[in-house]
Every structure is written in structure tokens, then in C-alpha cells.
């Protein structure tokens, strides 16, 4: 203990300024933690040379194939000896939080005690994947640290080509815009796929994100292979007395400029008596007017979810957003949740069997086409899945009549 601190003139400059400083936190840990002394030494070196010095490896816990992010230093002298030996191993444990990232203080205090005993004392709430990241642990301490966290009722998160840790918004716990039980949904999706989460064997990652309304606070359309977003299919609820109050307090011009004319489908109109007229058939559930007039407007009563598949960021073929594959489905009863579980299983199985190595669902759909994907998972086509019909004539329409008959049959059955 009490290894002397390295000089860190560059990091020191990040102690000043009004925003909370992680460097001050690292230093406090380094007072009685040699691993953090050397971690700061390596980090300062990175700041000087503008290079990273970690490499991966294979570290895990018994029974699982993933969830630990192994880090070994590459900053070594000519004899292959680590320059900062106490931080030569600096692994991270990814642990899944409860949906909505709620905690009581005792739980977090226990996390701190465990991580002070077995790790560096550095914890991130939370990583971009939604995990609690217990950062900085030697190989031999990974197992005892995990065992204690696991005894508390927490489980390892995903890493590598696997189902990843899910995310859900605060939702029903504290938001009137919530359209379903986000927490139950997130647990249904992730806990249904724990084998593929803990034992990475998929072509690439599979992410589930759950947002309670189209504000999509979990960024699911852009970041999730499987996005579940709340919506409703009856009329939006309008409290006309509150609408009038808004007009009176904010002014008619404000309401016209910021609510009426901002509606993307011109579905709103302010009546002469300052009540609101809503063309619900043309409302696309964008949430804007509800966001502005939180007291007057709210989602309808016939709530459910839309499901979009295939969102991801850049590599390899470029950014992709999710595509609607389920415009609406109720998500209330046990049967509804069983339906969701079955759909998610179909999607996961199809992905596992048909995606190329390192290909995400969005890229797979781009390669094989949406209709092939839908056929594979047993979902009927729907015009809500498209932005507009095909614009190019390069298509064979041999069995047009049969396809049209299918559509007419489905319409007649409704």
C-alpha cells in the first residue's frame, strides 16, 4: 500500500473547473490503492503520447463465456515488464441493473464495499450498453467479486457476439407518457435469451431496447436490433379545460406556433373558443404536442407497442435505423407477453442461423430484403412497414394476382 503517486501534470489540469472531476476521484482512490496509482500512471502516459495501451484477452467467470471485459497493459519496457505493474490487469465486470436503473442506497453501498474489497473502487453508472461497469480488477479477483454481486441478486451483462444487456426508460414507474410495462418487457426480452447473453455464440451482437413512448428516450430505433416502443391506437386524450388554460397563460400565438403548426401531419387545429381539434386518423403519435402541453394532452387508453428491427451504428455498411415489423400489438396480458417472447425468439433464431459473421440484424435485412426476413419469422407484410412503395421497376411480379388475393383475404378477415 501507499505506493507514491506518479506525476500527472496533464490529468491534474482536469481537476479544476465546475463539473465533477473523475481525476479527483481517481486520486482519492489512489491514496490507499496501488492499482489506481499505476492506472493513473498509464492514463497520464496516454495523455502525453495520445495512444491507448490496453489489449483484450480471455478472462471470465465459471459457467459463463462473456460479461468480463479483460484488459492487460501493453505499456512495457524492453524486457516485457509492465511499466505500471499494479495496473497490468484492469478488467471490467458488466453487471445488469434493474430496468429503469432504480436503486435503494443500501444496494449501491454494498456494490461499493464489494468493489473496494475486490477491485479498484471505480464504478461507472452506467456504460453505453446499460451495464453497471465495475472497472479495474485483477484476474484472480474477478470470480470472488462476481460471486458476491451474484449473491446480491445481480447477474452478468452481455459482451461480444451475444445478446447484450437491455435498456428501458423510467417508463411506468414515473412517466405519464408510458404506454406499457417497460420493465416487464425488458426483463421478458433479455431473460428469455440468457443463454445467448452469457455464452456468446451469435454472428454478432443483439440489442434490445425498450422505450415507453415515441419520444424514445432509450434511443432504440437507432441503437437496438429489437426496439419496442410504446404507442396507442385510439384517440389521444384531450382535457379541453387545460388546453384553454395553456392558451390563456402562454398566449394564442405561442400555442399556434409551438403546438398547432409543429404537428408533422397537420392534425391539429385551434378552435375559435381556444379548444383543440384533433384529427386522430392522421395523428402519427409523434408526441410533440403532448410534450408541450403535458397537463392537457396524453396518450389514449388503447395502448400497446410498435416493434422495429435492425437499428445500429456505422460499421460495416453504414448507419441503419430500425424498420417497423409490428405496427401495433397489445402488451398487457400474460398471453401478450408470451407473444412477445415468441416473436423475439423467432428473430433471434433467424439471426443466429442466417446472419454472416459480424453482421447485425439491420445489415442482414439489407442483404436479404425485408420480405425474406418477414417470411423467415412468420410475420405478414403491412404498409406501415414502408416509407413509400418501390420507386424502381427492377422487380418480377409474376404472381401478382396471388399476392393481391392474399391481401384481399386478409382485409376481408378483419
Amino acid at each position, binding site marked *: 500500500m501507499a505506493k507514491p503517486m506518479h506525476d500527472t501534470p496533464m490529468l491534474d489540469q482536469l481537476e479544476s473547473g465546475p463539473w465533477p*472531476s473523475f481525476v479527483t476521484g481517481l486520486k482519492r482512490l489512489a491514496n490507499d490503492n496501488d492499482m489506481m496509482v499505476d492506472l493513473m500512471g498509464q492514463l497520464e502516459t496516454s495523455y502525453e503520447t495520445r*495512444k491507448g495501451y490496453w489489449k483484450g484477452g480471455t478472462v471470465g467467470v465459471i459457467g459463463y463465456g462473456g460479461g468480463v471485459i479483460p484488459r492487460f497493459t501493453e505499456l512495457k519496457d524492453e524486457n516485457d515488464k509492465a511499466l505500471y505493474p499494479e495496473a497490468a490487469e484492469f478488467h471490467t465486470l458488466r453487471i445488469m441493473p434493474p430496468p429503469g436503473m432504480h436503486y435503494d442506497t443500501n444496494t449501491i453501498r454494498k456494490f461499493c464495499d464489494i468493489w473496494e474489497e475486490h477491485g479498484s473502487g471505480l464504478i461507472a453508472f452506467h456504460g453505453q450498453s446499460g451495464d453497471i461497469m465495475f472497472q479495474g480488477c485483477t484476474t484472480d479477483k474477478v470470480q470472488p467479486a462476481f460471486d458476491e454481486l451474484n449473491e446480491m*441478486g445481480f447477474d452478468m451483462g452481455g459482451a461480444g457476439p451475444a445478446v447484450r444487456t437491455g435498456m428501458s426508460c423510467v417508463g411506468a414507474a414515473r412517466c405519464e407518457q*408510458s404506454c406499457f410495462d417497460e420493465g416487464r418487457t425488458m426483463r421478458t426480452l433479455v431473460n428469455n435469451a440468457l443463454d445467448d447473453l452469457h455464452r456468446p455464440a451469435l454472428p454478432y451482437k443483439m440489442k434490445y431496447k425498450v422505450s415507453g413512448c415515441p419520444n424514445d428516450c432509450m434511443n432504440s430505433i*437507432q441503437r437496438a436490433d429489437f426496439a419496442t416502443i410504446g404507442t396507442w391506437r385510439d384517440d389521444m386524450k384531450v382535457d379541453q379545460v387545460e388546453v384553454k388554460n395553456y392558451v390563456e397563460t402562454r398566449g394564442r400565438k405561442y400555442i399556434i406556433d409551438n403546438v398547432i403548426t409543429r404537428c408533422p401531419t397537420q392534425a391539429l387545429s385551434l378552435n375559435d373558443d381556444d379548444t383543440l381539434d384533433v384529427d386522430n386518423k392522421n395523428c402519427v403519435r409523434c408526441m410533440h404536442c403532448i410534450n408541450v402541453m403535458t397537463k392537457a394532452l396524453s396518450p389514449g387508453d388503447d395502448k400497446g407497442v410498435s416493434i422495429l428491427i435492425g437499428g445500429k451504428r456505422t*460499421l460495416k455498411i453504414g448507419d441503419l435505423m430500425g424498420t417497423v415489423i409490428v405496427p401495433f400489438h397489445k402488451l398487457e396480458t400474460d398471453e401478450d407477453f408470451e407473444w412477445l417472447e415468441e416473436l423475439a425468439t423467432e428473430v433471434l433464431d433467424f439471426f443466429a442461423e442466417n446472419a454472416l459473421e459480424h453482421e447485425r440484424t439491420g445489415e442482414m435485412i439489407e442483404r436479404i430484403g425485408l420480405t425474406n426476413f418477414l417470411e423467415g419469422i412468420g410475420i405478414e407484410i403491412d404498409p406501415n412497414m414502408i416509407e413509400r412503395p418501390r420507386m424502381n421497376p427492377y422487380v418480377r411480379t409474376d404472381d401478382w394476382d396471388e399476392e393481391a388475393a392474399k391481401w384481399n383475404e386478409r382485409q376481408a378477415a378483419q
Partner: protein
Amino acid sequence: MAEAPRMPDETGVPEMDAYLHPVLKKNYGDWKWHDRPRPGVLHHVANSGDEIWTVRAGTQRQMDVYTIRKLMDIADEFAEGYVRFTIRSNIEYMVSEESKVQPLIDKLNAEGFPIGGTGNSVSMISHTQGWLHCDIPGTDASGAVKALMDELYDEFTKEEMPNRVRITTSCCQINCGGQGDIAINIQHTKPPKIDHDQVANVCERPSVVARCPVAAIRPAVVNGKPSLEVDEKKCICCGACFPPCPPMQINDPEHSKFAIWVGGKNSNARSKPTFHKLVAAGVPNNPPRWPEVSDVVKKILAAYKEDAKDWERIGEWAERIGWPRFFEKTGLPFTKYHIDNWRGGRANLNASAHIRF
């Protein structure tokens, strides 16, 4: 015989009930409306008549146990023993009495935690791991974010932007930080330098070849050893080959720069979700405070704050005033690199007579 090892309890995502503030648990799925009494404070009212006030504070995300315990002490003493975290690493304290809000705010401020990040503010930057823990970083994350949030502190604690501003940073082009109103991402400018002695030992060559978006990598024998070579004319310097093959050194202390992107939007409110667009590149990777990055970000924010209408996000503002005016108002140079030439890129060209004069 050795003792059998402990096998994990494969419990998955825990139920939230045990961790939920009692008022949230009681009114689960039954909230009526909310407002924001002041920046950093949310006030939710349930159909039951119950009310809850949420105080949101910024954190440094990478937290030492002392800081975390301090936050928990505050939760026990000034709040009601329950907290949650937002997607942007802000901590939220829930209290069931309005009278507790101000003392809680005062205590958090006294301990150095800013109150804000709600509504039309600049919230905490969502960021990645960088030099602290990533194996492929071109820069640091925590440091760049700390430096920038120092500069944007007032925009976090006030709600003075036209609409919310969500900033992200990413230490490579994989962009783990995600889409943002403003995204600050490393952009490599030189092809990888290959350590040919290592490739055969470390890399599965066919999968590295397959990883390249422009098919610029091919197997080769160099100095008698199996290795890889890069067609440098084709290479777009994306760094995709580096994670599966670390000898393809893409990070370059001098030539890896920052690029700034604007107009990413996750929400469906008003317009459909959008991806962010490149507006600046060649910004130096200059630790420990990355002042050149702050300059560009502040320029964009100042122009947006001055010119956008209420509720317009940065991307919506730019689309309304047109990109020529965006470059004019921000003073950023427009270059040939802004013109998309990736597949499908012509969709991003102006195929109309819509021109503003």
C-alpha cells in the same frame, strides 16, 4: 477431491420492485401529468393525487466509491433513500414532499454536483471509455467530456436552449457514444500502419479482409510471412480492421483527428428520427482539455441558441434554415468532404430548385 466451484445464479435482469421508491411503486403505470418547476427538477402527479419531485444532478460517470457513498449519504439524509440514473449518467433523487427539494439542491450544490440536465438544457454528454479502459481508443472520453462540461456548465444548469441538446463523444468511428444533436467522434485520416511481424500470430486474416467496408484489404506475404496489405487509395481510414487485428495500427497520435457531427435525433417528436451529419473535421486531438473541440461546439451552440425557434432541435433548425445558412451562421468552412459519396449518397444532394438567397 476439490470442492465444486460455485456456479452462477443465472437470474438475468432483476425485478425493479425492491429498488423502487415507494411512491413510484404505488403509482406504477398510473401517472397523470408532469411539469418542471425549475431546471433540474421534475414534478410528477399521479391519478391517485400522489406527487413526486425528482432532482437531477450531473455526475462524472466514472465514479470512485467515495463519491458514490457521498451521493448515497445525500440520498439518505436529504432524500428518501432511493435514486436512479438516467441514460446520460445523471443521478436522480425522488422525494415525496416539495419542502425537501430546496435543501436537497443546496446540499448537492455544496458538494459540487450541478443541478440540471432537464428540458431544453444541454444535458450530460454520453460517452465511452477511451484511454481509461478501451482497447482501440483514439482518444480519451472522460477527460474530453469533463473539459467540455466545464465549458457548458451553465447550459446544463439552465434551460435556455431552443430545445434539448444531446451531445455524444466517441473515441473511434464505431461511435459507441451514439447519435447526437452534436456528436464528437475520432476520425482517422491515414490508412493503418501494419506491423507485419505480428499479423500472422494475432489475426484471423480472412475475417479482417471481410471486415473492410471498401474491400481495400487483401492477404499478402511480407518479408516471407503471411500478412495483409491495404490498398491505400481505396482505404477510407475507418479503423474497422483494427479491433479484429491490432497490428493494423489505425490510431495515429498526430493524424487521428476529431470530426464534429450535428443533427442526430432519436425522438420521433415532430420529425422522424435522423442521423447526425458531418460539419467539421480535422479538429486536433489535444489533451488534456481539447480546446479546439470546445470552440467548434460552442460556435454551433451559440448559432443555434440565437437563431432556432422554440422546440427546434439542432438538426430541425439546420433543415429549416438550410445548410448553406448553417455554415454561414456557424462560420464553419464547407468543403468537398461534406458532399456524401458513399453508396446511396446522391439522396443527400439537392435535386430541386429549392435554393435560399
